[in-house]
């Protein structure tokens, strides 16, 4: 543990930017907003870089911390607000500020001339600040502050164009679904305090270690925290808000709903790995939920026609991968995928934004196609991102996904079923991602006529972030090339100190008993599955373009099922929302209006009529007032005499 008094600057910069843009942005104009909005994140990014290099050059296992202030003290409930920076949070701050910085720059072009320009940058700066609080917090409570802060910013940015009711509804949905998850998180936090009498990470984890493995309290705590993660990271069954959240500006989808905020759940589980490892039951549930979400969302993604929705389901699916990873105890693999995913999914969304921008708001894949010649930069960067997400060898997604799949198979908590579903999902991923890519950039043009002549490549301010992110989407995986491919997995080694207590909790029987050749075989299977997926798409969408329609007609029922996203929204509507509205109506009409309002109004009436009568006492004659004064004196003296 080393004291680092400049840690808070990381958060202070974006926060100051949010305040400046929020309060002064309208006054000083868009230029001021762009400079302030981007430079504060740039400073934060520089600081993150400095801290990271400090951490790398320091002795392994070094943890920087800063105590900010004594926050809450009530009885034995004492919370200090403090920040910690270990290798795990260092990776997170690099992702948040790095990808965030790119997206801020991109936003300057994308949000150009939007009437809410200053508001947009204020929100998004605030988001970065909240996210940094989340990842740097050293206690559950401060983490919860960041957790709620990012939720708030997400809500504010989904409803950014609030004039449209659809956007407002999407925001509400996101907020309410997140609230259900946060409720679990909150109860989990209270349970933690009830059990460990502290909310400080270090204290809680030390005391949790003493309780041993499988303690029901820890299982309950981890399950409740996981409910929070499910809400925030859009897993089954609370994923429904994320596709709708695409109503917000595209850079927001990229930053918040793909790269950073939705990964908070994964981060939280990685942060609490001691708790989770002590609760094998929860770990199994996490892994199952993760893998189920992965394949579930991937199937929906196959048939969606909105470019951003496909990406949204892909995000849900990839988050499922991350939960699969942490669920089998491969925390560094999960974080690794989180990082590479931030690069390529951020890039995919920015590319989609560039397409939408170029097509003047068109989001429907059926009205795209052949954009390659109009938007070359977007095309090439998008291609890199697609190759990365599908896991073509050499690109970043390959290494992280492969590591997850290998761990799903070989880890003591993993098994072949998890691996199999994971590989199937990888194949589906290839299908829907290449479908998206072919429908957008290749093949014949299907633009609406009125849009055709306006198609243009995006300005430099948007394409440069694309190129930079494209670079990282390509090479980002090289930090963690595994041993079997001749690398040394430096990423996992760097994260090792953050998970150093892992070996004390589970006896790591892993990888030793599996032969190297098995690893290679599994890897090749997944590569082949992906390549098969790609070639199918290539046939269907480039050569024989009538096949997709035929398939849709032959399997019309399952096609409809997928197109309507398994009717989950409708089921929720019928099973949860409508009964809820009915019950609310009963409560409103019977309980609220008659009883509650009646009580309140009755009380008011009593005082009103009493006042009517009592005001007659106020005669205006001074001497009557003086008399009551004297009478009071007499009574008080009398009381003391006869007492």
């Amino acid at each position: 543990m080393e004291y680092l008094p400049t840690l808070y600057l990381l958060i202070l910069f974006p926060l100051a930017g949010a305040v400046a843009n929020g309060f002064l942005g309208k006054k000083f104009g868009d230029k001021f907003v762009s400079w302030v909005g981007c430079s504060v994140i740039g400073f934060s990014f520089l600081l993150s870089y400095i801290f990271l290099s400090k951490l790398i050059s320091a002795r392994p296992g070094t943890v920087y911390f800063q105590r900010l202030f004594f926050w809450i003290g009530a009885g034995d409930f004492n919370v200090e607000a403090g920040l910690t920076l270990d290798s795990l949070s260092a990776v997170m701050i690099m992702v948040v500020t790095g990808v965030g910085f790119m997206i801020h720059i991109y936003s300057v072009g994308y949000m150009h001339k939007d009437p809410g320009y200053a508001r947009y940058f204020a929100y998004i700066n605030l988001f970065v600040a909240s996210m940094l609080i989340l990842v740097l917090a050293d206690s559950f409570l401060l983490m919860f502050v960041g957790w709620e802060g990012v939720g708030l910013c997400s809500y504010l940015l989904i409803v950014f164009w609030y004039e449209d009711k659809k956007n407002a509804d999407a925001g509400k949905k996101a907020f309410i679904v997140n609230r259900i998850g946060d409720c679990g998180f909150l109860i989990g936090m209270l349970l933690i305090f009830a059990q460990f009498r502290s909310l400080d990470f270090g204290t809680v984890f030390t005391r949790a270690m003493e309780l041993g493995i499988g303690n029901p309290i820890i299982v309950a705590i981890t399950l409740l925290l996981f409910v929070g993660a499910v809400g925030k990271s859009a897993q089954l069954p609370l994923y429904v808000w994320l596709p709708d959240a695409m109503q917000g500006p595209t850079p927001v989808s990229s930053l918040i709903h793909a790269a950073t905020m939705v990964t908070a759940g994964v981060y939280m589980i990685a942060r609490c790995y001691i708790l989770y490892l002590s609760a094998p039951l929860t770990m199994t549930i996490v892994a199952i939920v993760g893998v189920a979400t992965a394949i579930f969302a991937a199937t929906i993604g196959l048939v969606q026609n909105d470019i951003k929705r496909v990406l949204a389901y892909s995000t849900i699916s990839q988050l499922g991968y991350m939960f699969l990873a942490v669920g089998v105890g491969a925390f560094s693999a999960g974080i690794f995928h989180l990082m590479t995913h931030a690069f390529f999914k951020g890039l995919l969304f920015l590319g989609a934004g560039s397409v939408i921008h170029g097509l003047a708001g068109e989001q429907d894949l059926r009205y795209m196609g052949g954009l390659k010649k109009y938007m070359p930069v977007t095309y090439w960067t998008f291609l890199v991102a697609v190759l990365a997400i599908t896991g073509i060898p050499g690109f970043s997604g390959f290494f992280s996904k492969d590591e997850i799949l290998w761990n799903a198979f070989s880890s003591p908590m993993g098994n072949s079923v998890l691996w199999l579903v994971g590989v199937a999902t990888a194949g589906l991923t290839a299908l829907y991602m290449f479908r998206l890519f072919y429908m957008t950039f290749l093949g014949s043009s299907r633009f609406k006529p009125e849009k055709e002549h306006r198609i243009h490549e995006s300005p430099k301010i948007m394409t440069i972030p694309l190129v930079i992110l494209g670079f990282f989407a390509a090479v980002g995986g090289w930090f963690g090339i595994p041993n079997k491919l001749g690398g040394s997995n430096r990423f996992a080694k760097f994260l090792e100190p953050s998970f150093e207590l892992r070996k004390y909790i589970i006896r790591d029987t892993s990888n030793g008993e599996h032969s190297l050749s098995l690893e290679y075989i599994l890897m090749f299977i997944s590569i082949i599955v992906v390549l098969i997926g790609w070639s199918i798409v290539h046939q269907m969408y480039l050569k024989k373009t009538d096949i997709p329609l035929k398939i849709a007609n032959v399997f019309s029922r399952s096609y409809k099922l997928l197109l309507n996203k398994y009717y989950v929204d409708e089921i929720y509507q019928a099973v949860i929302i409508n009964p809820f509205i009915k019950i609310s109506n009963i409560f409103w009409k019977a309980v609220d209006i008659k009883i509650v309002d009646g009580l309140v109004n009755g009380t008011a009436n009593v005082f009103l009529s009493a006042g009517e009568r009592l005001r007659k006492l106020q005669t205006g004659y001074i001497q009557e007032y003086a008399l009551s004064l004297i009478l009071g004196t007499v009574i008080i003296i009398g009381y003391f005499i006869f007492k």
Partner: protein
Amino acid sequence: MVPLDNYLILSGILFTIGVIGVLVRRNVIVIFMSIELMLNAVNLTFIAFSRYLNSIDGQIFVLMVMVVAAAEVAVGLALIIAVFRIKKTVNVDEINILKW
């Protein structure tokens, strides 16, 4: 030496006369004079105690009371004059608009 009780009783009598004056007279100015009477009764108590307790602090209190009394009389009389300009009366029974 006169017993302390004599002074206190005298003070009580003066105070009660003042109270009666405040409560029964109609002329605002006389009511004010009655208040002065009450203040003086209290001053007498202070001085008496100061003497019988061999302490000088009571006399300081009396000075403070006099300061407040002077300020109060000045402001009060100014108010009376201001009211008189509007109502053309100093009769408290007729100055009764401060009510519901």
